[in-house]
């Protein structure tokens, strides 16, 4: 995703000289093509994220289009008040790009895990939150959000994601993307979990159940009517995210369901409300947090059986 982001940004920056890329001293071996081509518009702000966000707001107030990059906790939480006051309150065209969604930086430890970002940024008026599932969605969302002059947060995994789409799929901000159709239940996932859920769906299919899968790449704003349209007829709905069970995708969908006529079963699957104390790679940690594909499939099957 990081590569798709930077390649798309370079394309845009070729045509738009107002695009700036700011980093908090991260992006080694990723940003060199940008910095070589546009040295004046590449600013390494150093390990000083509060200032970086303020500088981005100052650039936006001067007609520039800054993209501000770092690992998620540092580019969202360290400088949260700058995002709130300088960017969102003033409603400026600043794009925040965070890398390392959920457990992507697995073995680096919980300081580098990103399990609260959606929850806190969702509370900010004017903010658009984008959480692509693969490099294709990343590219499309970078292109589409470039057209919108608004504070935006792009939540990226890291690298090595599978491509889930064919070339001509239409990705629109605010519109849920349907990756599989099915009648036995609905899974709404976001970010890297979409890819995992395709495998979960395959497991379920082997057991004779067909599930619909939505990639909800736009987590704010969520069009209530769009969601209600997609859930129509389903008795069983799951959300799957690599984020704290509080405040993220599951919470957002629960808010919509609670205020609707939905009378079926609903379950949020995500990271339990705790910091991961195990050490290991992403896949290894997921096993401890209930996010391995086998465990997700089992939880869905258990719920399904209760319904029958």
């Amino acid at each position, binding site marked *: 995703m990081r590569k798709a982001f930077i390649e798309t940004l370079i394309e845009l920056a070729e045509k738009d000289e107002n695009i700036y890329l700011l980093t908090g001293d991260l992006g080694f071996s990723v940003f060199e093509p940008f910095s070589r081509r546009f040295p*004046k*518009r590449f*600013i390494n*702000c*150093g390990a*000083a994220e*509060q*200032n970086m*966000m*303020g*500088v*981005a*707001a*100052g*650039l*936006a*107030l*001067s*007609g*520039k289009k*800054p993209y501000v990059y770092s690992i998620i906790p540092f580019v969202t939480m360290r400088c949260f*008040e*700058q995002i709130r*006051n*300088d960017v969102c*309150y*003033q409603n400026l065209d600043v794009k925040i790009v965070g890398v390392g969604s959920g457990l992507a930086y697995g073995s680096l430890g919980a300081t580098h895990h990103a399990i609260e970002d959606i929850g806190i940024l969702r509370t900010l008026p004017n903010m658009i939150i984008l959480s692509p599932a693969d490099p294709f969605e990343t590219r499309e969302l970078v292109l589409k959000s470039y057209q919108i002059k608004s504070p935006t947060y792009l939540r990226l995994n890291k690298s090595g994601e599978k491509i889930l789409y064919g070339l001509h799929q239409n990705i629109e901000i605010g519109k849920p993307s349907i990756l599989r159709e099915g009648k036995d239940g609905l899974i709404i996932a976001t970010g890297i979990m979409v890819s995992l859920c395709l495998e979960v769906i395959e497991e379920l299919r082997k057991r004779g159940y067909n599930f619909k899968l939505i990639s909800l790449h736009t987590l704010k704003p969520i069009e209530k009517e769009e969601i209600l349209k997609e859930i129509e007829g389903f008795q069983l709905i799951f959300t799957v995210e690599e984020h704290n069970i509080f405040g993220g995708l599951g919470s957002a969908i629960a808010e919509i369901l609670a205020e609707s006529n939905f009378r079926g079963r609903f379950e949020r699957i995500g990271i339990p409300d705790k910091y991961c104390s195990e050490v290991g790679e992403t896949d290894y940690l997921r096993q401890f947090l209930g996010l391995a594909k086998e465990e997700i499939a089992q939880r869905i099957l258990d719920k399904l059986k209760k319904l029958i």
Partner: protein
Amino acid sequence: MMYESRTAHLGSCLSCVDILTILYFKILSIDPKNPAAENRDRFLLSKGHGAAALYATLAQRGFFSEKILDGYCQNGGMLPGHSTRNCVPGVEVSTGSLGHGLSLGAGMALAAKNDKKEYRIFVLMSDGECEEGSVWEAALFASHHKLDNLIGIIDYNKLQALGWTNEVLNLEPLTKKWESFGWSVKEADGHNFLDLEEKLSRIPFEKGKPSLLICHTIKGKGVSFLENKLESHYKNLNFEEYQRALKGLE
């Protein structure tokens, strides 16, 4: 404004209003008829709690009608207690939380440099504000990028909300700190118009460096019973005090 609305920060406004007066009437290249002119100088009130002083100065300079001042902090008024971007013409940024303005100014200064524009960015901070770490992040950034079109001004009245700055969190040696961060620093009497004008007319102080003017000021300046008094930060005047204050300011 502040008497009618029973709001705080009178002392903070009185300590910086002379600086604002010199900036808006002698230094800034601005046009009240065209407040968004591309090449205008930018003034950022980073100590957003001095908003009443900024609004009053802007009104006197002709950015908007003085009648609007009556709505300061009043229900349905246009002027919130911390300066808010475009609440009236001339207010460049929204501030209120300390330690934000210098970074905003640095971003503007960087854009101006890259675009080869001549305009300058003035950022007025309070002394207590220099306790915020983000100020020093911005200070590093501005000197690193040689932003000599950025001018920081510190309203150094030596009093913050709960006490003297040297007792709450000592800032001294303040001049040396800024110099060591790569800024060119001068000091001025923040209530002496000639001194302020003379120093702010020669910008940058040094080519290739951001400039910092430390203005020694008196909190509550001009109202004898508020001068250098801690309570001037929060105190609301009663009618008798208000009349005495007005008389003293005449």
